[in-house]
């Protein structure tokens, strides 16, 4: 009887320790869940415009701070602690910089941007990942001068490169929270307008960039 009790006790203890070891977490399991996701975002962005013009040439580094908002859709694939996501995004922006030489004003706006980006990821914990942002963006811009350096009123699209860093953490179930810091740099664009002096042509050159902090709520279909 004593022998039986001793043997049973030993077996119970071994079983419990093995069970506890199992609960510790399988180090080979995927910490990033595969699947499609959709998200909405809101943030604050700073617009910088390196502006120059040809007649009485000057350069200005202009800028503005404003709110941005939009959404994205993507697919995430994970392998243990590493992952990659591909997503398409679109943002509306309220960014408007200006020069005023009374009574004239020269405006620079960004209306929206959209594009595609990849996000290489690393899982710090089973619930939290960090990622890098690398992508292509296309921005819509508007410049209008009613007499500061000349006369122009035009819209144009310009391509650019996007980069950034961010973190994602699970909020509850399939909903995650994401914070991103994203920098966009667009190519330079020269547009022709009229000079202040009748019969002259003023060339306006603008190079836009933005730095944005964005807060997103993501729903994953997995």
């Amino acid at each position, binding site marked *: 009887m004593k*022998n039986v009790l*001793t*043997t049973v*006790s*030993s077996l119970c*203890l*071994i079983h*419990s*320790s093995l069970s*506890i*070891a199992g*609960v*510790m977490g399988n180090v080979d399991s995927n910490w990033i869940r595969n699947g499609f996701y959709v998200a909405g975002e809101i*943030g*604050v*962005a*700073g*617009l*910088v*415009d390196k502006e*120059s013009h040809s007649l*009485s*040439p*000057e*350069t*200005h*580094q*202009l*800028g*503005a*701070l404003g709110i941005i908002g939009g959404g994205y859709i993507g697919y995430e694939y994970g392998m243990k602690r590493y992952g990659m996501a591909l997503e398409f995004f679109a943002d509306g922006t309220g960014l408007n*910089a*200006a*020069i*005023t*030489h*009374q009574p004239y004003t020269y405006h620079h706006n960004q209306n929206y941007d959209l594009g595609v980006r990849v996000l290489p990821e690393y899982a*710090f*914990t*089973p*619930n*939290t990942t*960090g990622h890098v942002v690398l992508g292509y963006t296309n921005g819509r811009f508007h410049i209008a001068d009613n007499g500061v350096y000349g006369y122009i009123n035009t819209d144009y699209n310009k391509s650019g490169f996007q980069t*950034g*860093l*961010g*973190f994602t*953490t*699970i*909020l509850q179930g399939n909903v995650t*929270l994401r*914070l991103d*810091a994203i*920098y966009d740099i667009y190519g330079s664009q020269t547009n022709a307008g009229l000079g202040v002096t009748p019969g002259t042509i003023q060339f306006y050159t603008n190079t836009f*960039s933005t*730095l944005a*902090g964005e*807060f997103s709520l993501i729903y994953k279909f997995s």
Partner: protein
Amino acid sequence: MIMHIRLCFFGVALLCSSVFAGTMGARIKPYNGLYIGGDIGVANFLDKESTLYAPGTYDKHQLSATGLVGGGMIGYDVSITDRIKLGIEGFINGTALNGAAEQKYGDFVSFNAHMRYNAGVRLLPGFEFSPGTIGHILLGYSYGKFNVKDNGDYGYINTDISNNGFQAGLGIKVPCFIQNLSLRGDMLYTTYGANNSLGLSSTFTPLNYHDNFATLEGSLSLIYKFL
């Protein structure tokens, strides 16, 4: 003999389970403690500048620049409840931010607005989403040191400006690879009070320069906590 073998087996089983029990983390990891950190980031600097030539007659420029910031912080974390946290920290950052307006003809004069550094104190109320991952907001006071210099673009001035400001932001902290080390990402907006400085116009009459500074900064920090 058999009894001795069984007792040894029993003892080994006990030892294994106690090892695993210890590894389970039955102890609650401490949170309260002093920490230090270093940060590096990118910031957007904004100067809403205007020059008043005569009552009601002014020029306005929204000058801006993007550049690097870097510095450090020292603080203390406390747990209010299991998931609600609070940090208080002092920080200082050096900056390389310079917004400019330049004339490319004549005397090639320019107006420059430059931010040198900022320092201050802030609170970080936080929420622990999962073990080790804490999202927080940042609310604080910032003291900024600036310089504006104009050698003939709108007038003449060369002055240092000190301004107080309010800082707000969002961030997240995650555990890093080594114990007591964590990685933190923050997005911060700082707005400083308006400043008026007296310079000279091109005809050497008094000219008022009005500047209103703000920054938007994204930074990454490595933090060590003394636990």
